[in-house]
């Protein structure tokens, strides 16, 4: 790749450009809007794949870093500071994009799921222009979250996903859409607020930097992630900070808890999950594909990126608690998924259960566990996207997703049912499909330190079989109600993403190194911190 291509910016901004372009289209050109949205989505994905092909784990992502000073806000430099030789005193947020072994898999996931969701939006009939514009805007937010290397930028992208989602749920959802949209907004808004507080605390402590220059001292509060990391490992940072807030234990714990809550809402961690049930149930299926497929992973990513890397001591100390939360998530979600009557709710609780395994991986504090958490995130993203793709097809044809009203669809919709069955098997962790690898790695990682939580987590895998089979078989197997006899099999535009996602799930299940090799060195910094702590 030519070195000077700002590939990360391309990935982030192409969808935004697409969204703006869509706004200029006339209202009635829905088909054109759809096609251009797919083209823009595909273009972004293309760049992401290019990045994947070019990325070399051994060298990390330094080569792709893009950085531009964006906000550099003067803080009032009063006499007291001037006397100390300070010439500049600022609060800085940069436009800083970067990629590493942790974000790249999620970027790829975003691209894949977004494209499939765009393709799978064929059922969306009303206000297509707006729909696809919002879908593109959402993508910019998601890519941005995974690529931002500045706390402020991260937050902005994080929030940028909020508004499109609100509209996508609220306009194109089911009957309870407005309520769902509201709940989504308020919970996530609260999460963002908490995150912002945590970030500002980080900026005010870890982000503080004093640079001596020829003219005098330059004091900067920076949201830059690299600065924070550098300060973290620099024992003199506290001394340099002068009168700034020192990052003491209590403050660190506060920040950690705040981050846990903020991202825990997104993940979601029990008991912060109430909002996502309604979103799963009410949002249009392609939007849920993105929601369950990518948005939940933003929480995981945030936890790793900020709570993990910046607060390793707290992560270490809180590992048992995180493991406990993980176990609760796994079992609570699984048991509740076993008694739901609405397929979408089964999937919602199943998401909770699966995200619990991610937490278990994080709690392992080992490379294999972290890799498992990340792998599970990607895998769950693909699987839930596939499941909701199928849900979208079924809903369009049968008008219902209630388990009691469905049945025997394998007869009238053999292809779709086959895909559903495959996705279900992937969700219950069948080896050879991607779900297994993530679970296995997480368990392998966690078992070394915490035996019983792992065993309980494994129990969740059993329950996964129960709820998946219960619901999938209720839909696909059994006698076919007469009114579903004449259903039409999936169109090409629906079948294509189904096959593609299935292919990805199988590919990752059979040859997980495609993804795990990327993660190599991704966690190196965090592991080093954890090890020095263990050593000292």
């Amino acid at each position, binding site marked *: 790749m030519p070195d000077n291509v700002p590939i990360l910016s391309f990935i982030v901004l192409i969808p935004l450009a697409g969204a703006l372009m869509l706004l200029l289209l006339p209202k009635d050109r829905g088909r054109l809007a759809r096609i251009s949205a797919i083209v823009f989505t595909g273009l972004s994905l293309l760049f992401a794949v290019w990045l994947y092909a070019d990325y070399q784990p051994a060298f990390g992502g330094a080569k792709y870093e893009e950085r531009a000073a964006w906000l550099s806000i003067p803080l009032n430099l*009063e006499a007291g500071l001037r006397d100390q030789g300070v010439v500049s005193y600022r609060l800085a947020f940069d436009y800083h994009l970067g990629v590493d072994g942790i974000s790249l898999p999620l970027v790829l996931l975003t691209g894949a799921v977004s494209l499939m969701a765009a393709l799978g939006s064929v059922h969306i009939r009303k206000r297509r222009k707006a729909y696809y514009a919002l879908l593109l805007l959402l993508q910019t937010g998601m890519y941005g979250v995974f690529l931002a290397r500045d706390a402020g930028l991260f937050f902005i992208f994080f929030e940028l996903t909020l508004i499109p989602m609100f509209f996508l749920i609220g306009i194109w959802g089911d009957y309870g859409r407005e309520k769902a949209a509201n709940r989504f907004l308020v919970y996530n808004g609260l999460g963002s607020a908490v995150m912002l507080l945590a970030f500002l605390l980080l900026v005010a402590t870890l982000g503080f930097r004093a640079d001596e220059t020829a003219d005098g001292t330059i004091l900067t509060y920076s949201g830059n992630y690299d600065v924070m990391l550098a300060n973290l490992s620099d024992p003199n940072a506290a001394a340099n900070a002068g009168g700034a807030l020192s990052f003491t234990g209590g403050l660190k714990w506060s920040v950690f808890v705040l981050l846990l809550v903020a991202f825990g809402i997104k993940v979601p961690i029990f008991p912060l999950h109430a909002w996502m049930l309604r979103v799963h149930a009410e949002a249009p299926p392609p939007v849920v594909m993105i929601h369950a497929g990518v948005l939940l992973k933003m929480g995981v990513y945030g936890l790793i990126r900020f709570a993990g890397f910046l607060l390793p001591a707290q992560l270490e100390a809180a590992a048992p608690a995180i493991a406990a939360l993980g176990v609760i998530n796994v079992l609570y979600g699984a048991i509740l998924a076993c008694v739901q009557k609405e397929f979408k709710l089964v999937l919602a609780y199943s998401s909770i259960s699966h995200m619990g395994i991610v937490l278990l991986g994080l709690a392992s504090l080992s490379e294999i566990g972290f890799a498992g958490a990340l792998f599970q995130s990607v895998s769950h993203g693909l699987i839930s996207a596939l499941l909701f793709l199928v849900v979208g097809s079924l809903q369009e044809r049968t008008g219902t997703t209630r388990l009691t009203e469905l049945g025997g669809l394998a007869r009238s919709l053999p292809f779709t049912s086959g895909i559903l069955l495959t996705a279900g098997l992937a969700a219950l962790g069948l080896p050879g499909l991607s779900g297994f690898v993530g679970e296995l790695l997480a368990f392998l990682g966690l078992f070394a330190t915490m035996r019983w939580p792992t065993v309980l987590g494994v129990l969740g895998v059993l329950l996964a079989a129960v709820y998946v089979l219960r619901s999938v078989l209720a839909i696909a197997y059994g006698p076919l109600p007469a009114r579903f006899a004449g259903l039409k099999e999936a169109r090409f535009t629906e079948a294509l993403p189904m096959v593609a996602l299935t292919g990805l799930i199988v590919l990752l299940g059979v040859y997980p190194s495609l993804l795990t090799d990327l993660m190599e060195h991704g966690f190196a910094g965090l592991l080093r911190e954890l090890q020095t702590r263990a050593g000292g």
Partner: protein
Amino acid sequence: MIVFHTLTWSDAWYLAPELALVGFALALAVLDLMLPDRVNRDWIGWGTLLGLAVAALFVSWHICDLRRSELAGEPAVRDLLYGSYLIDDFGNLLKLAFLGATALIVLASLGTIRKDEIPIKGEFYYLVLPAVTGAMMMASSGDLITLFVGLELLGVSSYALVGARKRSGLAGEAAFKYVVTGGTASAFILYGMSFLYGVTGSTGLAGISRGLEQAVADYRALVYVAFFLMIVGFALKLALAPFHAWAPDVYEGAPTPVTSFLAVVAKGAAFAMLYRIFVRTVFLADAEAAALREDVSLALAALAAAAIAVGTAGALRQRNAKRLLALSGVANAGILLVPLALDTTILHASFFPEFLYYLLAYAFMNVGAFAVLTVVSRASGKEELSAFAGLYHRAPWTAGAMTVLLCSLAGLPVTGGFFGKLFILFGTVQTKAYWLGAFMLAATAVSYYVYFKIIRQMYMRAGAEEPAVRVPVPAGIVIWLCAAATLALGVLPRPVLDWIDGLFSIGADMLTG
């Protein structure tokens, strides 16, 4: 000791903005009387705009003038009449903000207010001028007397403006409520001022500042009484909870442009006065008065928190768009108060940029939002939230602009509202006022719900069948100007803040004179 400073011609030059406004007000009043009835009184409006522009020009001139002196190493402040009137960057920046906001409001009301509703259209326009003059005096005074006169000038003019919809009983009721509340607030402030004068023997802020320490030592109780009374008075003026109850009623009854004026300019001016008095007297006090400063800060912080909480929670239940915006104004007043309630340390002295930046953002988003409300309620004949139903279908561009404005009110990036809040929040973190920051953030989350109620109406409710909303050109310009400015403030706050930072410094602009 007593030296009488009289007004000289050169002093008059410094008063040029205010004088210009007064001049225009008088001229327009006379013109309004002489013009025959059939002449469209919109001309008076354009005249008002011209007056505002001229005043703004003078203010800009002053800013450049001060900048020149500063670069030349001279004091960057002019004081008139023994320090009772100050031309400094604090005042000038705020004056520009007031003038700009007023101009936008007047522009938006051109073409939207109807003669059958406001029979005194001419007065309606030119009464704005003395009101702004009052606001400018409040921003620029260094003496309790001038501050009070400015306050009352603004107050009396706006009482009349509130009642401009003469034939509506609601407008009269609103005006009456405003008169009573405003009068009571003035009485409280004045009563507090009298004690401040009594214990220090001076009505000049500089004199008070000099005498305060001794006064605290000798008459602690009286000083406390003075500040307590003033805080109560300002809380009433600023509609800080639980002194806010009048605001929704008055905002609802007033014509929408006036509501917008009250929410932005009148509130901003009250803040200017609060800053003038408090920063100059207690803010940087130490030794004996340090405890006083702490208490005042705490009282202000508590009021801010209460305002944020009550404003946000109250707005949740409002169905009337104007009342909703009024309560949102209560919450925003709380936020604007936060910087003043924070400690000033060596690393945190940015209270004024924090305040001003948010005030600017608040001005744009509020003026814009009220302009949209004017347009929408004109089309549907109601001011309920449901007036916005299906706006996306009826006026997509206006709906888009309103979305930007509401996102800014809710504090979503990348808008001026977001950035302003972020800046203030960073201040709370820097000064370890975590609880206040947390409070702001929690309220922000709730406020998403509040503002998205309107967004929901615009995008998710039927309205496709209703006729398109006609947006008068001036109002359209204002709406889009506000939306664009809101976005610009969010995306690129740096130029504005660099500019403020280049001009303003606490030492020069708030503590001299």
